[in-house]
């Protein structure tokens, strides 16, 4: 009898651990994997699985319903002992809901029985890729943090970091939700850097800052002659982000009439440039961010439900600074301080515990961006190598103060200052919060850029 040749004769370093109480299921999966050059080890319940686990295991295929120790409990143990090993959960259709819940507990993937060979093999390949990526991250992690402290501090809190790692290996669209200044752009950048697309471009576009009529050309580009002034072909951001990531900041501000076009692109990765009938393709991963509640926007017909669901495949909430625990806050603070030490070549500066407490107790309506500015002021104006509570000055009132407190504050302010002082202070605040970008600061203040320019000139004189 002639034996069938294996379809994918591949050898691997790691073994697959198959955990199922049904010996036939184990043998079927074992046969299929062996044909693909994957070595296997079998266990017939959760306890045996835990005892069989060692460094040689690169992936675990775990049944849910088993005697002695079931899949759920076993997964918990596996996660504690070898968290880097991806676990693929097998379930019947009736237990698919349980399996979905297990994804939240750290399972890598779930498949329903009877398992299709090609599907199982594809998931194992994906799992291996995931593990390789984790190993790679383990090696280059500290380097990223050392070389670019500012880029990474927002993502440093452990829970967020863990979710970013998981999101990075997926190809699905991501929706980041969080208040202004929480570091959504940094998180998006980090997802890109840790993803298999990290060698490709990371292109960012702010949906709030672009006029409606420029949006389409900016996103998809145009052909020469498409409209008056289009004197040459221009590639859009979508095409520029091919093989990389397109970050759509403030997606909630995307004009309604543009939303179907973005939806079409998300569905089949194809688009038309303005003035062209030719269909273009771009292999781009979309990460979107917003400070708004997009579900509310959908209810108010400001945002399309279908686009919302298409974007919000992987949702990630970026916590505001005031909701972080003291430990998480300390991590962010350390990140900011490291960045300043590097920037000012002054590695000996420390922050006193009283100053940390004062910083932690503040509401931080401007979030990390505000903390950066506040700490930088303290860093520059401190009297010793230590930043003390007295060195810390806040430029904003707590968020819950609202207008009543603003009135009180203004009353106190005008006891010592003039309207002109307030104007100058407002200008400083706007420029600082917009990273000295005059155009953005002018928008924030609701005046023209020329006015900002004139005020700055007058201030210097």
């Amino acid at each position: 009898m002639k034996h069938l040749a294996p379809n994918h004769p591949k050898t691997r370093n790691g073994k697959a651990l198959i955990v199922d109480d049904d010996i036939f299921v184990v043998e079927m999966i074992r046969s299929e994997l062996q044909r693909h050059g994957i070595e296997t080890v079998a266990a017939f319940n959760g306890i045996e699985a835990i005892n069989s686990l060692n460094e040689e295991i690169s992936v675990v295929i775990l049944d849910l319903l088993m005697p002695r120790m079931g899949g759920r409990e076993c997964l918990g143990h596996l996660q504690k002992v070898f968290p880097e090993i991806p676990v693929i959960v097998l379930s019947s259709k009736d237990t698919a809901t349980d399996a979905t819940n297990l994804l939240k507990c750290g399972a890598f993937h779930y498949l329903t029985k009877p398992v299709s060979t090609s599907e199982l093999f594809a998931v194992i390949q994906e799992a291996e890729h995931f593990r390789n990526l984790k190993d790679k991250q383990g090696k280059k992690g500290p380097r990223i943090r050392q070389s670019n402290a500012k880029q990474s501090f927002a993502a440093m809190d452990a829970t967020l970091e863990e979710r970013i790692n998981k999101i990075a290996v997926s190809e699905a669209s991501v929706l980041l939700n969080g208040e202004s200044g929480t570091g959504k752009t940094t998180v998006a950048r980090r997802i890109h850097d840790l993803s298999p697309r990290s060698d490709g471009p990371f292109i960012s576009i702010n949906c709030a800052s672009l006029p409606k009529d420029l949006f389409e050309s900016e996103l998809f580009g145009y052909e020469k002659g498409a409209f008056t002034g289009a004197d040459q072909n221009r590639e859009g951001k979508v095409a520029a982000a091919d093989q990389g990531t397109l970050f759509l900041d403030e997606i909630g501000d995307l004009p309604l009439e543009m939303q179907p076009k973005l939806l079409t692109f998300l569905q089949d990765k194809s688009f038309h440039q303005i003035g062209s009938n030719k269909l273009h393709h771009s292999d781009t991963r979309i990460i979107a961010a917003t400070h708004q509640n997009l579900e509310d926007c959908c209810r108010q017909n400001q945002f399309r439900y279908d686009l919302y669901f298409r974007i919000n495949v992987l949702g990630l909430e970026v916590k505001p600074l005031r909701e972080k625990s003291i430990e998480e806050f300390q991590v962010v603070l350390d990140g900011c301080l490291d960045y300043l030490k590097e920037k000012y070549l002054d590695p000996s500066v420390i922050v006193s515990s009283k100053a940390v407490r004062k910083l932690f107790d503040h509401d931080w309506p401007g979030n990390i961006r505000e903390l950066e500015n506040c700490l930088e002021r303290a860093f520059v104006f401190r009297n010793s190598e230590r930043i003390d509570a007295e060195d810390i000055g806040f430029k904003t009132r707590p968020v819950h103060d609202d207008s009543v407190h603003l009135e009180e504050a203004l009353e106190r302010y005008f006891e010592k200052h003039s309207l002109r002082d307030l104007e100058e202070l407002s200008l400083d605040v706007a420029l600082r919060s917009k990273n000295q970008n005059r155009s953005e600061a002018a928008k924030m203040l609701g005046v023209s850029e020329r006015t900002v320019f004139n005020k700055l000139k007058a201030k210097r004189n």
Partner: protein
Amino acid sequence: MSADERGAACHFDLMKLRIASGDCPERMKVLIDSLEMSVSDSLERSLQAIETQNREALISAIHRLKGTLAMAGADELSAQSEECIATAKASTDWYPTKDRVDRLRELVLDAMENLQLEANRNEAR
């Protein structure tokens, strides 16, 4: 589908097992032996559950059997297992459940015997 047609459809998918084994006789034997072990074990458990009138244990045993049958490409038998589970869940009376399980047991054992014969014929060729 009539009862006869359903009965005729109660078989394992030999081709599926041949593909999984890479058409290697040793591997094929392992697969068939493990299938027989697994099926016998589930049927034994289901009989015990009926004897002790333990509905939960019966559903669990048939559920396991259903998974084994589906994995071996016996789709009709797997569907009939599902029906057994539905009967066990719906009926407070044990007789309809026992009838269904007995019928399923016969069909599974017949299909198992046919599979062995077919596999032997195939190997001899």
